[in-house]
C-alpha cells in the first residue's frame, strides 16, 4: 500500500515543472494545464505501476509526454488545422512581463523539430540527466544527446548567436549590416 500523502506531495511538487514542460509542448497555458490535470488523474489511477523509490517526476513526465503525443496525433487527423487557429494559439502565450529576449527565444524554440525541442528542454531546463530524458522519451541515450546537440546548434543559428555577448542590441545592429 502506498501512502497517499507522500504520493500527493510528490505529485504536487512536480506540478510547476510539469506545467513548464507542457507549455513547451503545446504552446498554450490552458491546454498545458488540461494536460497536467489529465496526467495527474492518469498517474493517480495507475499508482500501482509506479515503482516506489524511483523518480516520481520522471514517471509523471513520461505520462504527460505520452498523453500529449496521442492527443496531438488525434488532433492532426481530426482538424489538420484548416484555418490556422491552432497555429495561432501557439503564439498566444501569456507573455505579461517577460523580456523581449525571451519572446524571441521562444519563437526560435518553436522552429525546432518537436523531438529536438523536448530533448533540449528536458535536459537543459527540467534538469533531467540524459539517461532520464531517454527513459521519458523512450529512446536511446545517444539519441537524446544528438538531439540536444542539434537543437543547440539550430538555436544558435536561428538566433545568430556567435558568442554570449551577441545576445541583445548587438544582434540587431549586425542584422542591419548584413541585410544591406
Amino acid at each position, binding site marked *: 500500500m502506498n501512502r497517499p500523502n507522500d504520493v500527493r506531495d510528490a*505529485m504536487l511538487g512536480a506540478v510547476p515543472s510539469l506545467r513548464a514542460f507542457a507549455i513547451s509542448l503545446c504552446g498554450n497555458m490552458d491546454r498545458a494545464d488540461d494536460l497536467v490535470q489529465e496526467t495527474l488523474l492518469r498517474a493517480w489511477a495507475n499508482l500501482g505501476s509506479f515503482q516506489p523509490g524511483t523518480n516520481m517526476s520522471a514517471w509523471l513526465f513520461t505520462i504527460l509526454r505520452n498523453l500529449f503525443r496521442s492527443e496531438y496525433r488525434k488532433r492532426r487527423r481530426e482538424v489538420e488545422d484548416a484555418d490556422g487557429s491552432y497555429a495561432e494559439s501557439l503564439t498566444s502565450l501569456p507573455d505579461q512581463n517577460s523580456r523581449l529576449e525571451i519572446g524571441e*527565444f521562444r519563437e526560435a524554440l518553436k522552429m525546432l523539430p518537436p523531438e529536438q525541442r523536448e530533448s533540449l528542454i528536458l535536459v537543459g531546463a527540467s534538469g533531467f540527466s540524459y539517461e532520464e530524458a531517454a527513459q521519458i522519451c523512450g529512446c536511446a541515450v545517444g539519441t537524446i544527446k544528438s538531439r540536444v546537440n542539434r537543437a543547440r*546548434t539550430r538555436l544558435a543559428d536561428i538566433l545568430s548567436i556567435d558568442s554570449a555577448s551577441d545576445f541583445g542590441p548587438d544582434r540587431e545592429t549586425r542584422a542591419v549590416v548584413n541585410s544591406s
Partner: protein
Amino acid sequence: MNRSGPSQRKTKTDVRGSETVIKLGPDIKAKIGQQLRLMYGEVVDQGVPDRFVEMLKRLDNATDRGSKE
C-alpha cells in the same frame, strides 16, 4: 543578400550538409541554457495553481474513504 563579412565568426565549419557537425563554444551553450531556464522558470515560479491542489485533495479523500470500506 546575406554576405558573410569578417565579423561573422560563428564556430561552424560548413553549412552545406544538413548533418554538418558543428562545435558550439561553451559560451553559446551557456547562453542557450540560461535562456531556457529563464523561460522555463517563468512558469515554474507560478507555483502550483489551486485547481491541482483541490483535485489531489479530492482524489486523496476518495482513496481514504475507499480503503476504510
